[in-house]
């Protein structure tokens, strides 16, 4: 199922993303095994290259032993107007789940980042992850633990993404999330 995405120039989309439509499409495809996650992948692959320097280089890439699959592998040219400080690749995982994504899935994504040598990962979710960001419990504990090994995972929800109007909005959403999570980092064990 293709998404009707807003048309805009390279960095700005002409109309606001229709969050309701996006969520309705995500909901409609959620239970179809073949489409699970695909709509979010399609959305992420459209959205991220609006940020200067980012380009999707591979989709649905399996590891050598086929034990794991990475939804999107994004290259970062470290453009000054993009993410100058983030080394490539950036891995992207998409979870179009009715429920919040749990610790096991977040840990598996962290493992993929570790295997892939990625310092940054973006987790596109329909409904966030389990636990409390402040308490650093459940899935948030996995993210905090990865942080101590210099791997940063940013969780993006459809509600958050639907309010973005430009690449700059999206870029600052990601920057704010990275910085606020850094400011809130604390011991969890």
């Amino acid at each position: 199922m293709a998404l009707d995405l807003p048309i805009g120039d390279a960095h700005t989309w002409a109309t606001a993303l229709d969050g309701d439509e996006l969520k309705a499409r995500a909901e409609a495809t959620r239970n179809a095994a073949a489409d699970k996650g695909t709509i979010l992948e399609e959305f992420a692959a459209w959205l991220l290259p609006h940020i200067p320097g980012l380009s999707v280089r591979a989709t649905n890439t399996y590891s050598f032993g086929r034990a794991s699959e990475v939804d999107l592998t994004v290259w970062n040219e470290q453009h000054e107007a993009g993410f100058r400080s983030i080394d490539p690749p950036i891995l992207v995982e998409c979870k179009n789940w009715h429920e919040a994504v749990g610790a096991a899935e977040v840990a598996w994504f962290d493992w993929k980042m570790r295997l892939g040598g990625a310092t940054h990962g973006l987790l596109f979710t329909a409904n966030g992850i389990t636990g409390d960001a402040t308490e650093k419990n459940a899935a948030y504990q996995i993210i905090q633990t990865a942080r101590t090994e210099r791997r940063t995972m940013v969780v993006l929800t459809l509600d958050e993404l639907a309010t973005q109007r430009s690449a700059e909005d999206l870029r600052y959403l990601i920057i704010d999330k990275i910085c606020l999570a850094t400011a809130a980092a604390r011991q969890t064990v």
Partner: protein
Amino acid sequence: MFSAAGCRVYSEHDGARDTPVGIADLVVWHESLDSERGAPVVVEVLARTSATGALIPRLRRTKQLTGVRTLLALTTGTHAPYVERDEGGGWIVQATFRDVLDLLVDHDLNGALVGLTGANRASDGA
């Protein structure tokens, strides 16, 4: 100081006099920061002491917990910058408010950190 230098500044503890050990005082993002220094940078404000030795384990712990590449500790007094580089290429830089302020007058944050880390390479790996 950092806001005036064009940085985005974040803190979980606005207005708090002391932050618990291991939690960053300030988190600073600036567009100039490259992958060598990393972004964001954690800033620890050490207003009451400049004694390096006793503070380094605490600074290492905060740096590890926050996962940043560079931690900048600001102190009072008039000592030379202390620079420590870990095996993973990360930095702990301890410098006076005055030195950092002087550098930020003429440089962006990345340039200021380059100035500081180049100022005392003898302490690398200490």
